[in-house]
C-alpha cells in the first residue's frame, strides 16, 4: 500500500477501504483488528459458491488524531458492494463498543477527562446495507450497531464519512443518519432506497435510474448539504476528509451533539417541519428544494466546483 503521505492526495472515491482507514488518522498510528492475516471470513459465502475475503469487506481498527484514540470502520464496496454480513457486522458493532468501553474506563480513571483525549469513532460508509447471502444475520447486526450508537450518545462522538462509489444505502442509511456528524464529498450519496428500486416502484417517467445527474441530485453530497442532512462537504481527497474530521473533533462533545439531525424530541420536531415543507412544496426534483432555499438559479449549482458551491449555495433552514 502507498505511504501515508502519498495517500493524502489520493481520491477518496478511488481509494480502497484500507487506504481510507490508514489515511484518515495520523501518520503511522493505524492498527487493524481482525485483519486479512487473521483470516476471519464469512462461513456462509462458500456454501453459496461465493468467493470470500479475509477481511469480509470491512476494515476495523484504531489509530490516533492528536491525543484522541480514533476507532475506525471502513467499508469496502469492491467486495459484494460493501454489504454487511455476520462477520463484517460483528466487526462494526465491536469497534463501536470498544470505543464506548474505553471512554468509560478513561473517565473512571480520570473523571475530568480532557476533551483532547476523548475517544471517537469514524465510519467510512460504502454499502447498500444487508448482504443478501446472509441477510438475517446482517439485519440483526444492523440493530446491534444502532444500539451501540445510542450507547455512545453524548459520550463518544461518531463521525460519518460518505464519499465512496457505492454510497450509503439500505439499513446503513439509518445508521449514518443516527451518527453525530456527517461529512460527504459531492460524489458521496446517502439515502435509504437505491435508484433502481425507486424506478421499479414509481416507474421510469417519475424516476429514471440511468439518469446519473438525477441520481446525484436526489441523494448526492451537494443536495444533502443544502437540505442539512450532511454537515460538511469535503473535497474528494483523503486529506480533505481527514482535515474536516480533525476540525470537527476539536469541538467539545456538547457542540458536536448540536450537529445531529435526529435523536431527541426537539430534533424530531424540526424534521416534522421539513416533512410539512415536503408536503407543501411537492418537489419533482431536488432543485425545487434548492430554489426554495433561496438559490435563484439552482441548475447552476450542479456543475460548480466545490469552492464555488460552498461560497454561493444557500442552505435550507426548516
Amino acid at each position, binding site marked *: 500500500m502507498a505511504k501515508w503521505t502519498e495517500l493524502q492526495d489520493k481520491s477518496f472515491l478511488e481509494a480502497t477501504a484500507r487506504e481510507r482507514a490508514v489515511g484518515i488518522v495520523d501518520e503511522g498510528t493505524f492498527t487493524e483488528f481482525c485483519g486479512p492475516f487473521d483470516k476471519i471470513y464469512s462461513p456462509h459465502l462458500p456454501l453459496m459458491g461465493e468467493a470470500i475475503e479475509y477481511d469480509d469487506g470491512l476494515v476495523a481498527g484504531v489509530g490516533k488524531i492528536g491525543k484522541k484514540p480514533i476507532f475506525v470502520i471502513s467499508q469496502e464496496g469492491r467486495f459484494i458492494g460493501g454489504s454487511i454480513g455476520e462477520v463484517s457486522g460483528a466487526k462494526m458493532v465491536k469497534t463501536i463498543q470498544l470505543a464506548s468501553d474505553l471512554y468509560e474506563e478513561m473517565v473512571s480513571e480520570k473523571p475530568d477527562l480532557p476533551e483532547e483525549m476523548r475517544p471517537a469513532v469514524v465510519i467510512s460508509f460504502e454499502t447498500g446495507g444487508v448482504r443478501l447471502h446472509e441477510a438475517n444475520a446482517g439485519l440483526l447486526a444492523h440493530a446491534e450497531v*444502532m444500539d451501540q450508537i445510542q450507547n455512545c450518545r453524548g459520550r463518544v462522538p461518531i463521525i460519518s464519512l460518505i464519499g465512496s462509489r457505492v454510497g450509503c444505502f439500505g439499513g446503513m442509511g439509518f445508521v449514518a443518519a443516527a451518527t453525530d456528524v456527517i461529512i460527504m464529498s459531492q460524489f458521496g450519496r446517502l439515502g435509504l432506497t437505491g435508484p433502481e428500486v425507486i424506478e421499479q416502484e414509481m416507474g421510469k417517467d417519475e424516476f429514471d435510474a440511468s439518469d446519473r445527474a438525477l441520481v446525484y441530485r436526489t441523494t448526492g453530497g451537494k443536495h444533502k448539504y443544502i437540505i442539512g442532512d450532511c454537515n460538511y462537504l469535503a473535497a474528494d481527497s483523503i486529506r480533505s476528509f481527514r482535515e474536516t474530521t480533525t476540525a470537527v473533533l476539536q469541538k467539545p462533545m456538547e457542540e458536536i451533539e448540536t450537529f445531529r439531525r435526529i435523536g431527541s424530541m426537539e430534533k424530531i420536531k424540526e424534521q416534522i417541519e421539513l416533512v410539512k415543507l415536503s408536503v407543501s412544496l411537492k418537489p419533482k426534483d431536488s432543485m425545487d428544494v434548492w430554489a426554495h432555499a433561496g438559490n435563484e438559479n439552482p441548475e447552476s449549482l450542479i456543475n460548480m466546483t466545490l469552492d464555488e458551491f460552498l461560497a454561493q449555495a444557500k442552505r435550507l433552514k426548516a
Partner: protein
Amino acid sequence: MEIMMGQGRLAIEKIVDPESFKENTIGESSFEDNEVGPGAVVGTAQIGDQDCTIIASDAMAMNERFPVVYAGIIGLEEGYKMAMAVYKTIEADKEKKGTEKRPILLIVDTPGNGPGKQEEIFGMNKSTGAYQLALAEARKAGHPIVAMVIGRAISGAFLCHGLQADRILSLSSKFETMIHVMPLTSVSVITKLDIERLEELSKTNPVFAAGPDFFYQLGGVEELVEEVDGMRSCILKHIAEIREMKAAGEEARLGPWGRGALGEQRGGRMIRGKVMAMMDKQFFAFAEQNLY
C-alpha cells in the same frame, strides 16, 4: 386458522384490556394533528394493571400526501410519529424510577419503508432512523419494550419497528407470518442458486432463509407464539421478565445485544462471538502498548 396479517387494530383489541385503548394519547400529551401519519397507530392502553404505549401499523390506511404509504408501509410521517410516541412515553414517565417505567408494545405488521423520490429528497433514512434511536433510548431508560410480530416484519421496516425491542415474539409460521430481508426468490436471483438448492441449504443454515423459525434459530426472535389468544399472556410474561432483568442489572441479556448471545446459544450465529472475542484480545494488546 386466524390470520392476523393486515389487522393491527384487531390485534390491539385482542391483546390489551377490553376497551382500554386510547388512540393518539400518551401520558398528558395528545397528538396535535391526528391526520399526520395515518399508517401508524399510536396510543395508550391498559395491559394487566399497567399503562402501556402501543405502536402499530394500520394496513387499511392510505396517506394521501405520500402515495407510497399503504398496506402498513412506514413513510416519512409515520416514522416520525412513531418516534414521537416513544419520546412522549419517556416524557410521561420521566419522574418514575427505572423499574416503574411503562412498557411499550410494538405490534409488527409492516412490509417496508416508503420507497419514493420525495422520500429520498427529504431523507427517509432519518425518519425511521429517528424511531430506532428513540426506542433504544427508551429501552435503556428502563421501559420494557416487547415486539409482537403478527404479520409482516420485513427488512428495514422490521429494523425500525421491532428489532430495537428488549424481546421479540412472533406468531408461528402457521399464521403465515413473514420475517425476512427479501423472499427466497430474490435471494435466488442475487446468488444465482436455484430455489430448491437454497431450500436445501436453509435446513442446515438459518442465515438467509425467510420465516420466523429461522429468526428464532438466530436469536432474532425470543419466542414463537402458537395461538392468537396466547399473545396477551406471553407479552405479559415477557414484560415481567424484562422488568426483573432490568432491576437486576442484566440489560446485556436483552435487546439487540442479548439476541446476539441467544443466537450463539441456539447455534444460529456462531462466528459473531469469535470475531468479537478476537477483537477484544487484539485491542487489549494494542491498548497495553499504546494507550497506557
